């Protein structure tokens, strides 16, 4: 009787949780194809906008950051390890930006191991994008948004891989918020201060030229992240002048090009 019961329970578990997993390369191929289709759609939209004159860049400051540099920054910014739900340790082992076709994609590879059974481990691929570009306090930064993940290899069998799948899915936001904001290493002054001069008969007042800079568009293309910034200078404020309403850099807008995820090579 016990055997029969055990057989039944296993059958049930198999039916409920252990449906066959796709091979990692097949899953990755699907994601790559989907990503490229999205990129094609993004590009067609951008080209149409540009041809209609809706994308005006010439009066904006352009910052172009290479995938290599952003990758190095990203890797330097990653936390060494994080523990999820007190059950698994997750260590991001590689991070690769993919700035193609209007997508600021990010691809991570992570090693996951059980906190209780260190030998039980799996490899995860996580995909996301850089979003919410903002310019604040002279800093240009963006957040990592995770969107997909996939269990690539596991030493724990399909059943445990499915449990891991559920655990990561439930804690994707926790993993995401453990990745700090990525700062692009560019700096912007918020004003140009100019000293005056008092020499002999000449008295020139010092003053400052306030600058208002805000993110206008983000266009990831050709392996580079292009950040376009609205910039306005002035009016000149002589020192000692009545302090009128000082222009502050406008609040950063969300990027027009909404980068999404994934492998694009």
């Amino acid at each position: 009787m016990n055997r029969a019961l055990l057989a039944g329970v296993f059958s049930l578990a198999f039916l409920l949780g252990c449906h066959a997993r796709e091979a990692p390369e097949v899953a990755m191929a699907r994601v790559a194809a989907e990503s490229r289709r999205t990129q094609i759609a993004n590009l067609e939209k951008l080209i149409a906008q540009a041809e209609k004159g809706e994308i005006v860049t010439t009066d904006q400051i352009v910052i172009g950051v290479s995938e290599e540099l952003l990758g190095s920054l990203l890797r330097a910014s990653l936390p060494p390890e994080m523990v999820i739900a007190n059950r698994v340790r997750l260590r991001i082992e590689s991070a690769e930006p993919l700035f193609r076709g209007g997508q600021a994609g990010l691809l991570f590879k992570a090693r996951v191991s059980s906190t209780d059974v260190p030998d039980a481990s799996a490899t995860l691929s996580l995909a996301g994008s850089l979003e919410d570009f903002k310019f604040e306090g002279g800093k240009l930064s963006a957040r990592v948004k995770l969107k997909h993940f996939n269990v690539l290899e596991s030493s724990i069998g399909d059943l445990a891989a499915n449990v891991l799948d559920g655990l990561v899915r439930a804690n994707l936001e926790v993993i995401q918020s453990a990745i700090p904001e990525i700062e692009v290493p560019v700096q912007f002054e918020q004003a140009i201060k100019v000293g005056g001069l008092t020499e002999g008969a000449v008295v020139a007042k010092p003053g400052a030229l306030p600058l208002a800079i805000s993110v206008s568009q983000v266009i990831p293309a050709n392996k580079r992240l292009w950040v376009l910034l609205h910039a306005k200078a002035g009016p000149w404020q002589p020192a000692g002048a009545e302090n009128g309403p000082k222009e502050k850099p406008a609040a950063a807008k969300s990027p027009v090009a909404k980068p999404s995820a994934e492998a694009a090579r």
Partner: protein
Amino acid sequence: MKRIALALVLIALGGGAAFVYWSTSPPELPPPPTETELQALLEKRDALQQRLSAVVVANGEKSLASAPRGGVMIGIPTSFTRSILDQIVTGLFNELTLTLKNLKVHKEGEVKVKAVFGKKTVGKYVLDVQIHQVRGLLKPGTPDVVFSRDRVSVSLPVRLAEGQGDADIRLKWDSKGLAANMICGDVEVTKSVTGGVIPQDYRLAGAFKISSAGAAITLSPDFPEELQVRIYVDPSEQAWAAVQEVIKDRRAACEATLNKVDIKGILGNIVDRGFNVKIPQKLIKPIRLPAGIKQSLEVQGIKLDLQLKPTGLLVSGDRIWYGADIAFGAPGSLASPTPVTKPAAKR
């Protein structure tokens, strides 16, 4: 009986599980993409990226293709740079004041008249003009800003727009001889006068050299000649009237004698020469353009030094481009000094 019941329970469980599985399982996936399909998507995407670049260039980004590559590329529109230069240069010259204080002019001489035996000295005069203050106010016009290979030339019209001054004129007359003493006696009179400043136009011409000293683009002033402004005082009607009063208050014979001093002529000479004021070149200081590359970052609470290696600087008609590669130094280590980059040829 028990066995039959157990078998039925298992069958029921199995059936339920099968129902749950089939009702919750995701729809069947389409066949995965083939290598050929993936390659075709890649080629289409790359072609569209090229097309997007071409459209962006056609829309005005003329220098994009020749911009210096690097880990970071910064392109500052020349229109924005022009706006910065316009406002800083005009801001500095706007209401720039030129104030001359305590200028003193001293003139003395003798007045001689014809006598029976030659000429005779009838008196000595001392004319002191003390200009307490002359103040001129400059107003800039709209500068012409022209970008070239490695510099941006600036030509700024400046007007000495207005001004005023005040002075004391003191005339001391010492009659010589009995007759002169009887006619005029000794005179000492001081009159306060005011005047304006004659507007004059000037042009400040020079350039800013464009270079990159590692982290940012700097515009260094190169104004070979200092601007020389000459302030011409325009005495007011009241001033000339006051000068006349010095003489007119005397008796007719004395007035005729004092007229020989030609106070008006002496004052006219002083006014006509004007006062030269040089505006020091150091008034115009280097300007750092507001977008640059950081030399360190704080990552997870640790300062990470960034070593910049400039890859080029390009001044074109639409943008000033600056490119640099960045290497990460050890946390807290000193970044090596970065060389100055001069612009590449204009495209």
